[in-house]
């Protein structure tokens, strides 16, 4: 390369960041997150709640890939989560598939739904993107609502009874809450590994570039529309997995899973935890669900309380709980 001939300073003199423990922690984020998730049920009062936090954390994580890392606000993620749950449930109930195959079906369902919604919505941006995704997810809601033979309609899809899970000849009792937690956690950890690789990959760099400056990304030779669509589909894979796990966990898929409130949940959890942070979605899910569970013990108006916390967070900690914490530690 002829440009090299202009170099006058020695290349080795690059000012490098000192590898602090913070940088070290960042490099091993999957390991640390996994370790935390494995120890988590031991400090939780109810394991069932811990499972919920895991699943919603994964759902928010999938949403955060799009919202936090790419900067696209979708208001239709319930369709991805719900499709994952329904397809996993249908695979078990109607086709008698084994649980692991049903999970794969759920993930593929999330991917396919994301591709379908993505293709239609991806050319819009900002508030319009949020509106289009919300409208499309409502269409999906009614589609599943009407397909009573397959989905049970209003009553939800019942009878997803997975009692025992066998992996390589080892049998696990899926009814036992702690065992169930660790089975779900295993999938969540796989998802964490996958997400971490995406973020560290060249495509992860493209996602950041598009978020940072769309016009510049385009001028550099990146197809912004394609980038968005791919990220949306990847997000669908995570949300589909979360939905499939939810179906196994609840052993029923309620129609509410497709409701736009579920879409809002992902937004809230991401914002609470910290958009664009690796572990933030789990923090957001944990805070939200803990508040819901604890506050509803003494008042039915728990949403009022959660709403207040949410507003405080958005107003004073725009980086979310985890994001703010990271920022403090870094300084």
């Amino acid at each position, binding site marked *: 390369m002829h440009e090299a001939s202009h*170099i006058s300073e020695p*290349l080795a003199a*690059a000012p*490098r960041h000192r590898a602090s423990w913070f940088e070290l922690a960042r490099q091993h984020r999957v390991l640390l997150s996994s370790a935390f998730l494995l120890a988590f049920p031991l400090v939780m009062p109810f394991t069932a709640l811990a499972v919920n936090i895991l699943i919603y954390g994964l759902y928010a994580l999938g949403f955060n890939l799009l919202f936090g890392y790419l900067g696209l606000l979708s208001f239709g993620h319930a369709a991805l989560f719900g499709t994952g749950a329904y397809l996993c449930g249908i695979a078990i109930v109607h086709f008698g598939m084994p649980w692991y195959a049903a999970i794969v079906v759920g993930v593929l369902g999330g991917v396919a739904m994301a591709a379908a919604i993505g293709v239609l919505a991806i050319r819009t941006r900002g508030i319009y993107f949020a509106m289009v995704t919300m409208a499309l997810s409502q269409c999906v809601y009614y589609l599943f609502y009407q397909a009573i033979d397959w989905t049970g309609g209003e009553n939800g899809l019942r009878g997803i009874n997975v009692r025992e899970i066998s992996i390589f000849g080892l049998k696990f009792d899926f009814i036992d809450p702690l065992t169930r937690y660790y089975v779900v956690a295993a999938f969540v950890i796989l998802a964490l590994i996958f997400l971490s*690789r995406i973020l560290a990959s060249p495509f992860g760099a493209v996602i950041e*570039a598009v978020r940072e400056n769309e016009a510049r990304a385009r001028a550099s030779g990146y197809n912004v529309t394609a980038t968005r669509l791919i990220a949306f589909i990847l997000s669908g894979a995570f949300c589909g997995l979360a939905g499939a796990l939810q179906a196994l966990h609840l052993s029923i898929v309620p129609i509410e899973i497709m409701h736009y409130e579920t879409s809002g949940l992902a937004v809230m959890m991401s914002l609470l935890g910290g958009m664009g942070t690796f572990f933030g979605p789990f923090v957001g899910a944990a805070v939200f669900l803990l508040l819901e569970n604890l506050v509803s013990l003494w008042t039915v108006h728990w949403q009022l309380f959660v709403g207040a916390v949410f507003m405080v967070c958005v107003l004073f900690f725009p980086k979310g709980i985890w994001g703010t914490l990271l920022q403090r530690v870094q300084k």
Partner: protein
Amino acid sequence: MIGQTATSDVILRTERVSKQFGKFTALKDITAEFRRGAITSIIGPNGAGKSTYFNLLSGAFPPTSGQVEFEGRDVTGLPQHKFAHMGVAKSFQITNVFPQLSTHENIRVALQALSSRYNIWTPRTSYKDLVVQADELLHRVGLWSRRGRLAGTLAHGEQRALEIGMALASHPRLLLLDEPTAGMSPEETRVMMDLIVQLAQERTVILVEHKMKLVMGISDRLLVLHHGELLAEGTPADIRRNETVKRVYLGQREH
């Protein structure tokens, strides 16, 4: 008659390009050729349509009518990202970097656009050649000492230099610069002009500039726009002698 006049020493040409914004005609029937290896400056007073013309040349948006041709190929209406792959790079009038990414990453991302952009599995650091090339480009534009800094925290002049570095990442045969010295101090301007002259030794440069004096010395050819029309075209000496240009442009207070 496109094609007949397109010889190899013409890198870019526009054939009767016009651009309407609603009822407003920003550009009207501009036919011009840009010579390979030359520095061509597009000048004109404020509101002359320089930036609109620049955007048509760089593919930011298509003309309302007319045709843009790069290396003999019709590129009218081609999406922006394809221009980088063809060998056309641009810098923006308003500083345009990735503010939350490091200076090094800004250039590395720009380099990556031409190779491994859809890989979602391999760590980006494993593409060592891109890391090394990014370092070389940082040297080239004088930002080596800013390698790890967030691009958004760089001084204005440094951000502009970074933009040039990013534009060079695609090894462009044609470099389009929109007011590269806008908002720069005299010292920064001098450094930038030197850099542009140096870059032009290896590639074609087209720049849009408001300050006529600045480009007279370095340009091989000049296009003068006025009210969306091509007023004059020629060597700096031609332009200096041109009476119409003097009236509409030089008659104004010098910038």
